[in-house]
């Protein structure tokens, strides 16, 4: 006799990712590695930003994981600037998952204090995946237009920091930076915003200081 029953359960569909992310966070905490997940659209300038940011950190204390759909290009660019980096090729997947980070942690050198994760260029999918990070940076760039926040609220909602990149192009664009700042505050009141130019190096030092302070604050307690 077969019997048909209904069972009520409550399992998040991303259960496995959530469990691995938690495991990763514990690992990072034990090693005192502060992890920063950087999310943006393609071409917003993540790689250039990381290249510039590196000059404010001691090279041997920073490790960078780069997620890309199929090329090794960005990691190579970072290595050429003297950074320790490794590319995770996602094989067509549009986001990084905690399991991909887990497979790469053995590459992280002993004395690493900061791990930057350059996520796959995309503002939608990466926002749903916790990678065990301590700080989530969402980057947008002025040529993308000033309507990104209402279009991709989830990304900005899960972020701790917004970087508005390519401010050097503001004189040539119709980009209302005040409107963007106002909208950001309406999505998340306490979100931190930096207006930067990764190319020219504007305000990168301030972002670096902010990250260093966050690490200190986090591991003090």
């Amino acid at each position: 006799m077969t019997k048909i029953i209904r069972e009520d359960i409550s399992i998040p569909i991303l259960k496995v990712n959530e469990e691995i992310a938690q495991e990763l966070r514990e690992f990072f905490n034990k090693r005192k590695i502060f992890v920063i997940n950087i999310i943006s659209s393609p071409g917003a300038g993540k790689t250039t930003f990381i290249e510039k940011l590196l000059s404010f950190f001691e090279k041997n204390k920073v490790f960078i994981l780069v997620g890309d759909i199929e090329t090794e290009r960005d990691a190579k660019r970072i290595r050429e600037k003297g950074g320790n980096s490794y590319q995770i090729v996602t094989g067509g997947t549009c986001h990084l998952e905690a399991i991909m980070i887990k497979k790469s942690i053995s590459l992280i050198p002993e004395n690493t204090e900061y791990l930057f994760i350059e996520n796959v260029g995309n503002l939608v999918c990466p926002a749903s995946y916790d990678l065990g990070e301590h700080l989530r940076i969402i980057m947008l760039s002025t040529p993308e237009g000033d309507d990104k926040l209402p279009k991709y609220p989830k990304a900005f909602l899960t972020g701790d920091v917004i970087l508005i990149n390519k401010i050097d192009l503001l004189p040539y664009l119709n980009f209302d930076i005040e409107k963007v700042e106002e909208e950001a505050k309406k999505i998340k009141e306490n979100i931190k915003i930096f207006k930067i130019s990764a190319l020219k190096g504007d305000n990168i030092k301030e972002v670096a200081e902010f990250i260093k302070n966050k690490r200190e604050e986090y591991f003090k307690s």
Partner: protein
Amino acid sequence: MHEYSLANNLIELLREQKKEKKAKKILKVELDFGKLSGAEPVLFEEAFEILKKETEFKETELKINLIEPEIKCLKCGKTFNTPYFPFLCPFCENFGGEIIKGDKIFIKSLVIENF
């Protein structure tokens, strides 16, 4: 575009549940699908329908309940529903807030056939 990846996760979880519950078949799976999950229900359904064909869940029926976001105002502490951004509290007109429901996808129930 991560709906395929999510549908794959669902299939993995169904496998796990089937084993755990020693079920013969999973006839139906019901999801609470948050409107702020970042995934498109239509694309998700399509992905599941395609992927399930290669699995033991060929006959599993998918039901999606769309869940409206529920926000807790950080100023007055009341909760409210709103499908739109920004989150504007109707009680104290404060912007922003904490999402307490509607930003994830959950398996809510299974209908299983036992031996």
